[in-house]
């Protein structure tokens, strides 16, 4: 599990929860560190991504990771779960648009983490690309996400 979180207490709680699920955890203190870890070939069953962090936030980090997946820089199909104290419908929408697979309220407890891990291996998230006039591929929508939610 990759825990992306700037607050030490939340990091500790997340680490222990992961331990309780019988897994190991790596920690990134912000979105930029997470992106570096993924670039370096990080392979995780799930990435727990906090939203509000300094340097680079969770939304941007997720977008970067999805971009790297799309260009084949890293393996596809990373399971990114937003963990945030905020949970308005707007926040959810922003999260999903950035490429999150799930959006849950912090902190995540063992039962919830186990539930997430038990989900069948996700189908590839299908990204619809829009080749704008200037030729740059843009992610315009996220479709075909795992139907089991």
């Amino acid at each position, binding site marked *: 599990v990759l825990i992306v979180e700037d607050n*030490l*207490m*939340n990091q500790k*709680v997340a680490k*222990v929860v992961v*331990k309780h699920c019988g897994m190991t955890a790596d920690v990134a203190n912000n979105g930029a560190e997470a992106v570096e870890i993924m670039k370096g070939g990080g392979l995780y069953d799930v990435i727990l991504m906090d939203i*509000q962090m300094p340097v680079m936030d969770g939304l941007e980090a997720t977008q970067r990771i999805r971009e790297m997946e799309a260009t084949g820089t890293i393996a596809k199909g990373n399971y990114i779960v937003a963990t945030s104290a905020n949970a308005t419908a707007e926040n959810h929408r922003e999260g999903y648009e950035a490429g999150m697979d799930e959006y849950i309220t912090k902190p995540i*407890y063992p039962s919830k983490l186990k539930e997430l891990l038990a989900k069948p291996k996700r189908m590839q998230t299908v990204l619809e690309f829009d080749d704008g006039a200037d030729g740059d591929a843009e992610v315009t929508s996220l479709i075909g996400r795992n139907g089991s939610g």
Partner: protein
Amino acid sequence: MGKTKKTLEELEDERSALEQEAYDEKTKLLNRSQFQELLELQNEEEPEFVAEIVEMYLADAKEMLNELSKLFSEEKVKEAEDGKPNYNTVRAVLHKLKGSSSTFGADGVQQKCEELREHCINEDLDKCRTGEGSLEELQSNVDILSEFLAKYTAKIKEIYELSQEAKADE
């Protein structure tokens, strides 16, 4: 030596009593389900978990309260171009404190953060500083919680030590 040691049962009862105190609607110190979940994370592999989390939470809270205090200080307000405290920064700090408190299950503190946030939205500096929903009140709530947590972690340490002793005696 003639030392009257409490039994594990007695200690557990005391611990239960402390918890009841915290979960009481009137004191609103801690959120039962949230705090229970945290307690359940402590085990043989992480015997000090609760104490560690408590320490981290209180250190965070202290730092944030200090920051808030500075932001509302006469000095800072006078410095400001518009003669107002930086309400945006205050709200950002409050948001962090609220987040930590919610992880921890500190309902009362969370609520006070909300109240103070309201005063910020209304840009009511007086209310921000003293009275209901003020920084002063928030500080006092954190102090009360801090005191409680010190008692509580001491109690679970006592229980842990006694149970380890009992194991050694077996």
